[in-house]
């Protein structure tokens, strides 16, 4: 399977995502340059974290207008797998490929810490490696991770099982006390109606390489790979 990592100016985590696919997953991967509209033959696209365009104006505000994003949209419309991590999630909401928006953390500070997440829905192309209710550690590192959407939208997403991950305690409890940034319903990651576009604030790539002491995030990439292999076989 061919993986693509979108390279936008200021995408600091592009190398990290590349490393996760290349070294941890052992799959072919290349960078997709933001000025190119031709994505070539990729099967899955990662929009990495970082500070595209310096996060000026709003995170993702300038990046989602880049030429490559037009092609990413078209790719997703045809059913291609797209995952936006951290800044990538922000870019996906800015481009309306995912509902809602990411506001500044309630505590007004950048937060870099290990974070426990509860897996809400494991019947997706991105989460099949987990059991529903699993608690995984996935680091967060963001200043604008406070997920917001209108009440109707939230209700609809909840009803459709579009919430993939919630910020929880190590025992899987979800409460205000386990909410690091003020997200509605402790939402940490969501999927679109079609089930092929995911956005999440936590960094699965940072908990993929076991040398760094964490490995639960690898499941996201393995799930994607298994899904691709199944549909392509």
């Amino acid at each position, binding site marked *: 399977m061919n993986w693509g990592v979108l390279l936008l*100016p*200021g995408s*600091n*985590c592009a*190398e*990290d995502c590349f*490393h*996760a696919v290349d070294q941890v997953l052992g799959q072919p991967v290349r960078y997709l340059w933001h000025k190119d509209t031709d994505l070539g033959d990729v099967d899955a696209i990662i929009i990495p974290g*970082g*500070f595209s*365009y*310096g*996060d*000026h104006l709003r995170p993702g505000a300038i990046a989602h207008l880049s030429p490559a994003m037009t092609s990413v949209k078209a790719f997703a419309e045809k059913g291609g797998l797209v995952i936006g991590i951290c800044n990538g999630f922000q870019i996906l909401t800015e481009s309306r490929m995912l509902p809602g928006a990411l506001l500044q953390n309630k505590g007004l*500070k*950048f*937060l*870099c*810490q290990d974070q426990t997440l509860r897996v809400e829905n494991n019947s997706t192309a991105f989460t099949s490696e987990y059991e529903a209710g699993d608690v995984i550690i996935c*680091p967060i*590192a963001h*200043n604008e991770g406070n997920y917001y959407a209108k009440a109707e939208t939230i209700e609809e997403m909840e009803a459709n099982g579009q919430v993939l991950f919630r910020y929880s305690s190590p025992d899987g409890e979800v409460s205000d006390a386990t909410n690091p940034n003020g997200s509605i319903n402790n939402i940490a990651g969501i999927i679109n109606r079609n089930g092929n576009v995911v956005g999440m604030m936590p*960094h699965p*790539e*940072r908990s993929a*390489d076991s*040398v*760094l*002491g964490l490995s639960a995030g690898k499941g996201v990439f393995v799930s994607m790979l298994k899904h691709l292999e199944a549909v392509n076989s």
Partner: protein
Amino acid sequence: MTEKKAGMEEKLWRKAGLTDSEYALLTKHMGREPNVVELALYAQMWSEHCGYTHTRPLFKHFPTTGPRIVQGPGENAGIVDIDDDEVLTFKLESHNHPSAIAPFQGAATGVGGIIRDILAMGAYPIASLNSLHFGHPGDRGHTRWLISEVVHGIGEYGNCVGVPTVGGELRFADAYKGNPLVNAMCVGYMKKSEIKKAIATGVGNSLMIVGNLTGRDGMGGASFASKDLEEENDDDRGAIQVGDPFMEKLLIEACLEVFQEDYVVGVQDMGAAGILSSSVETASKAGNGVEIDVALVPKREEAMRPEEVMISESQERMLLIVKKGMEEKVNKIFHKWDLHAVVIGHVTDDGMYRVLEDGKTVGEVPVWSLMDAPTYELVGEAPAHLQRTQSFKNSDVDVPDDLNQVLIKLLGSPDICSKEWVYRQYDHRVQMNTVVKPGSDASILRIKGRDKGVGVTMDSNGRYCYLNPRTGSQSVVVEAARNLVVSGAEPIAITDGLNFGNPETPDVYYQLEQAIMGLSEACRALNTPVIGGNASLYNQTPEFGAIYPTPIVGMVGLVKSLDHTTTMEFKAEGDHIILLGTTREELGASEYLDQIHGMVMGDVPELDLEEEAQTQAFILKAIRAGLLSSAHDLGDGGLAVAIAESCIKGELGAHIELDANIRADALLFGESQSRFLLSVTPDKADQLMDMAAEMGVEAATIGKVSTDKKLSIKNNETQLIDRDLALCADAFNTGFDKMMKTDG
């Protein structure tokens, strides 16, 4: 030559910060009087900041060579060998004055500046650290604002540029009330073959400026940084630069891409005195001259005077010395990253530094003379306070009745409490190399594709150096080394930051001289040469006086195998707890004396550098033999605090039984040097104790790790400490937040 007369009758040079004798000297060098442009060149290059006028003569004491030293002081940053044809480059830099008046921007641009030093060596920046000193935050809202802004500025820059901020230190004393210290350090990685130098070789080669536009930012920052920080000086306030980490990220990508090709012969970042100092330094190293036309420099502002362009400190700019004919190729790569690369001049063979404006010469002086800043060797005099402070005797203070209370207070005190409030605002994981995160003694980064890693730490102790500049400075070096060694890293080299008051006063000069001697002695004893550093003098204000003499040490070590890293927290019930070293009845200079008795008094603890080196060698050997469950050095707050820290981080209790014959407060909280706290599984305990005996290191089993979540310390059957771990943890973990919320 231009006919403009400089009006030197008005003693313009004094305004520019030059003394009468310096003016006479430069006139002699030039063979005539300078014009305004030329005067500005000298004023900048001969400032303390660029010319190291007071510190350069003292640098000769530093050991600077060793088997792993590839590059000592003299380049943008030093380089050390970490085997496999791989090297690290690192350096620290102060940004004290800008941070005092615009803390967010001052701190942010400090981070950006040191990253460019590393980039200029050809390396990829892999880690940032910072050492911060403030007044006590409980005292003033202003101090809390400074802390918030500085931390925010460091975080925002580092996070955005994508270099993990993996460690540092944060210390408090009233001496920093008027003059906070912000020192930033950066570590870079590269292959040996990728090393770049700051040199302008090849007559006819082009000088290209890359990165940001040039504006009137930081006008005269170099000489500004060398003046006392006076209050309400509006001119100085105009000097604030704004950082753009996004631009810096692009600059890193573009530069490293250009370096892959054979286009560039030299690189220099633009720091203090911008285009001027970067080009002078590169030319001087090659023995060449340069010619720069200010009209060619891409500018952000209109009607800039030639000297303004030359000394502007606009951020995120670099100077490349590009092979003749390769300019377009370089520009193409920068263009890809939406940056420009513009030819502003070229290398000449006449040894002159020539400034042009639209092709017309507006200033011309010999390159060597700009680099030849006069130096000053003054006669120091021991500060008067030493007689008073060293007269302290332990009997001047009573042993407190409630030692539990003392422990809790110390755990929550500013210097000791957890700094998570700070480092959770820093992305310490980006780049995916951080094996040991901040919160331990040193942070460890892996080298991708290898089994080895790198340990990094930054340390200082202003109070120690105030009470004994020589031994105090030695202690700073050995403490940095301890932090590395307990993490499993073998110390390689240091970069030093000399933060002092006005060196023209004899007592400050004494402190400076003694500190440099002390650093040098300790570096020799530990085989950790000095490969670079920075001096920030004149850190004083009329209202609050001079800061503590504060040499800061940034140290880097090699972890030969990641299997051999160790952390400070206790790991398992039943593990034996072992104390290395000798506990003497030493209360002087301690955190305990300061926090509990409100006294900055006494002499620093005795330090035997040979014993220290031997103990450190033993710990490394034990870690590499896989014997240790945990290792932690004893520092601020002594034995009791170290035990509590290992318990809190490991969420395990400890039962300790001692048999000492000294005062209880000295036993628990004294800061005798060369001591470490280890834990070991029972089956390996004998082997460890044998190894200690063989190497002549004093080691005593003092207790066991327990699961009852209690911290208990007895001495000769007397219960000294008996506390629930939860109470200790709460004090330690919430100390910082509480401090930042105090009203005042």
